[in-house]
């Protein structure tokens, strides 16, 4: 095996330029500075472009995320040559690859969704058509942006899932761009199906009368989710997006990578991610009920079921931030134990850090993001700054090789073999000790869960995050 036979991200190893925590501190400082500068320029309601309207800014940050995933994970940086990636200065690479992603995003949003789909398929993707039917310009743009953004939410789960869970199968042996185009088309097609069965009804009841001839209204999930809003689907889909990255980064694809049979491993990974995400989704919804009380259908904000479902997705994204930080800038700490122990510690640690990020965000964000204090605001989506920050993480690590704290060096053959061990692992084998530990661990996990849900009402009654 050599470096050219694997993807660029797999072929390189990021090496610290300085010892100790200095690289992480330097990168964190620069990333936060870049975050705030770009936030002010593009998103901040007090800043220059003010895209946080909110749906325009929401759409942009989500589609940027998809384009980054497509470029780095699915197209393996095609059409850029490996030699260019290896030799070019990270700053230049970061700028070029980001600008290419932005250009592709604009072409996709404006060209495909607005001009093609919006003119020849579904009117609500095109603001001009909505305006021609009497909707004010502002809401015409917002509705179209909402629909395009919702499509991105689905793609942000399915696109990386195909690479991470399905290991690019069955096209893993195709060269670029054939593989990239194929996987993009397939995941785009799947996203479209999922969009139609999860979001189209939401969009159809935005208009009066309900568009019953073209969408299922009221939607089939109404009774189960206690709302007609598509936020119910945003909840579990965002959890899927987050779980894909947990699985790829801090879980090192454990435990599904223990399955030796390729097909079974891929199918189990794909649906296992969904099952874990749904479990997380239900827990995060129930946790809110425990803290704030049960929802009241028809009301707004904090007590509304539609907002609670949305907030499930928002809380999940808060988990993604420390997860990626730990993986990117802390060398996936800890690494000295066995894989299951490392995974367990990282999961507990990042979950705890997610709570910290959540509390800090709600205590302070209104002081510097141009937003207002409060958990629930009809025009505020914490996913926008969180995804914006994640996008900058990705630019830094995927496009700039972690510059300036890190530099890329080529992996040795032995290191490349190690990577293959992540895909199909053999470090955990079924023994009596494992079985016994697993049984006791399952009971301990259940006890931990019940301890958390017992504590949450107390948290709600005694801890005030926003005064």
């Amino acid at each position: 095996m050599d470096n050219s036979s694997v993807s660029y991200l797999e072929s390189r190893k990021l090496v610290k330029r300085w010892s100790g925590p200095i690289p992480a501190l330097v990168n964190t400082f620069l990333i936060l500075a870049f975050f705030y500068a770009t936030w002010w320029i593009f998103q901040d309601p007090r800043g220059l472009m003010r895209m946080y309207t909110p749906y325009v800014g929401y759409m942009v940050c989500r589609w940027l995320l998809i384009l980054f995933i497509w470029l780095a994970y699915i197209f393996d940086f095609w059409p850029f040559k490996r030699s260019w990636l290896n030799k070019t200065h990270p700053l230049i690479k970061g700028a070029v690859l980001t600008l290419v992603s932005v250009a592709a995003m604009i072409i996709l949003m404006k060209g495909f969704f607005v001009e093609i789909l919006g003119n020849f398929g579904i009117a609500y993707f095109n603001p001009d058509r909505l305006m021609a039917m009497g909707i004010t310009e502002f809401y015409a743009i917002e509705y179209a942006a909402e629909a395009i953004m919702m499509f991105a939410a689905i793609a942000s789960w399915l696109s990386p899932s195909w690479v991470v869970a399905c290991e690019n199968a069955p096209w893993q042996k195709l060269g670029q761009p054939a593989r990239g185009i194929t996987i993009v088309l397939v995941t785009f097609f799947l996203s479209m199906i999922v969009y139609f069965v999860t979001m189209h009804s939401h969009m159809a009841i935005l208009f009066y009368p309900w568009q019953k001839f073209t969408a299922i209204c009221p939607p089939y999930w109404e009774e189960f989710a206690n709302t007609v809003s598509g936020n119910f689907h945003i909840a579990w889909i965002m959890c899927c997006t987050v779980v894909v990255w947990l699985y790829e980064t801090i879980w090192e694809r454990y435990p599904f990578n223990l399955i030796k049979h390729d097909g079974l491993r891929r199918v189990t990974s794909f649906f296992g991610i969904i099952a874990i995400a749904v479990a997380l989704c239900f827990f995060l919804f129930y946790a809110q009920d425990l803290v704030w009380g049960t929802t009241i259908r028809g009301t707004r904000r904090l007590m509304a079921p539609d907002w609670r479902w949305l907030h499930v997705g928002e809380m999940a994204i808060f988990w993604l931030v420390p997860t990626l930080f730990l993986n990117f800038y802390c060398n996936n700490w800890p690494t000295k134990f066995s894989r299951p122990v490392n995974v367990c510690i990282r999961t507990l640690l990042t979950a705890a850090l997610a709570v910290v990020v959540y509390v800090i965000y709600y205590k302070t964000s209104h002081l510097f993001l141009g937003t207002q204090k409060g958990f629930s605001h009809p025009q505020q989506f914490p996913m926008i700054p969180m995804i914006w920050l994640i996008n900058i993480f990705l630019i830094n690590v995927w496009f700039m090789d972690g510059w300036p704290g890190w530099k890329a060096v080529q992996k040795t053959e032995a290191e490349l073999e190690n990577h293959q061990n992540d895909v199909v692992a053999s470090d955990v084998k079924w023994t009596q000790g494992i079985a016994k530990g697993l049984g006791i661990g399952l009971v301990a996990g259940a006890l931990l869960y019940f301890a958390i849900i017992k504590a949450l009402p107390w948290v709600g009654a005694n801890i005030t995050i926003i005064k």
Partner: protein
Amino acid sequence: MSTNRNNISRRDFVKGAATGLVAGTFASMGMYSYSPWAYSQLPKTQRNQQDFGTCRSVRVTNISETSWFNNAHLIGDIHEAGGLLVNQYTLNWAPLANGKGSGKGSYEEGISTIKDLLPHDLEKAWEIQKKLSLHPENPGGYSCLLEVEALDGTVRKFLLDTGWSYEWMDSCFKREGIDQMLRDQEIEALFISHEHWDHFWGLPVTMKYDNRIPLYVHDGFYKEGLQYIKDSGYKGEPVIVNKPVTQIAPGMALLKFDVPIINRVFGETSLAFNIKDKGLVLVSGCNHQGILQFADFAFTNLKYDNDKFYGIYGGLHISPFEDWDPKYDDLVIALGQWGFELIGCNHCTGHLTAKKFVEAGYPVVRGTARFRSASEDYLGNGDKITFG
């Protein structure tokens, strides 16, 4: 050899336990969290019903519900300034515009152009601001008069909100005789539901007639809002509402809700009335907290006759810009279960919402569509409704 086997076994045990801990937690989350068993364990709501007395009736006179006259202009201005999170004081609307264009306004610069004229020469102040502001013909305002009849038959008058345009609000006050009531100090208090332009910026019009009227504002008012109270010519000390429930009169209470609102406004106060033998009436400016949140708060915290919801008056803030969202349909579907007998909605409720309420068979009180109110679907300017 035996020791070695034990070590290996211990390592395996830890691997299994670590895996099981994570798997067990997720499995419990999935199997229990959204299940009927989980919800059967939740404590029932504890009602802590505060007795705030009883009144015989409340009559509401709609002084103005038309906060603006052209939706496209209003939302277009907000759009141009950067959307629904932009600070309202930078939007460059009268009477606080500085002439620098969309999103470039500032309270200090805006008020400096008219401060000396408030509240005695509102015509001139408005003329000056017409030249500096965006769409100066668009402002209207929201305000209503509340006449509360006590059990002994005496009637006390209160004002909820004071509108936006000096020109429009002054004419509305004159139309309904509010100017004279203020001059005669018949109106006991002015409640500002929230800091938004269309409920609050017309304050100098009230000050012109009575600059010592007791004034209640939510404690989420920003410094610009508090300064505007002074700059409008107010000579009293505003009551900063910082308690969830404040009793105003027998059967009348002011309720405070801490909610973030569009264009950088925080918090709304609304009114609740206990009508003898009828039940609870909820009156709001915009109801940003949501009508059912309002009702649920009252259900938990107030004692009222027959334990019944009786009536609603005011803006319900559902589709103020004739926009829509599926969650609004949740309200249309759910409202019927709360059993309101009289729904006197208008203003930011939106015509589409009123239409959907009517289609759902709810008791929406229709209006007369006079004085520039656009539709008979709900109570318009000059219309009255009596609860009790």
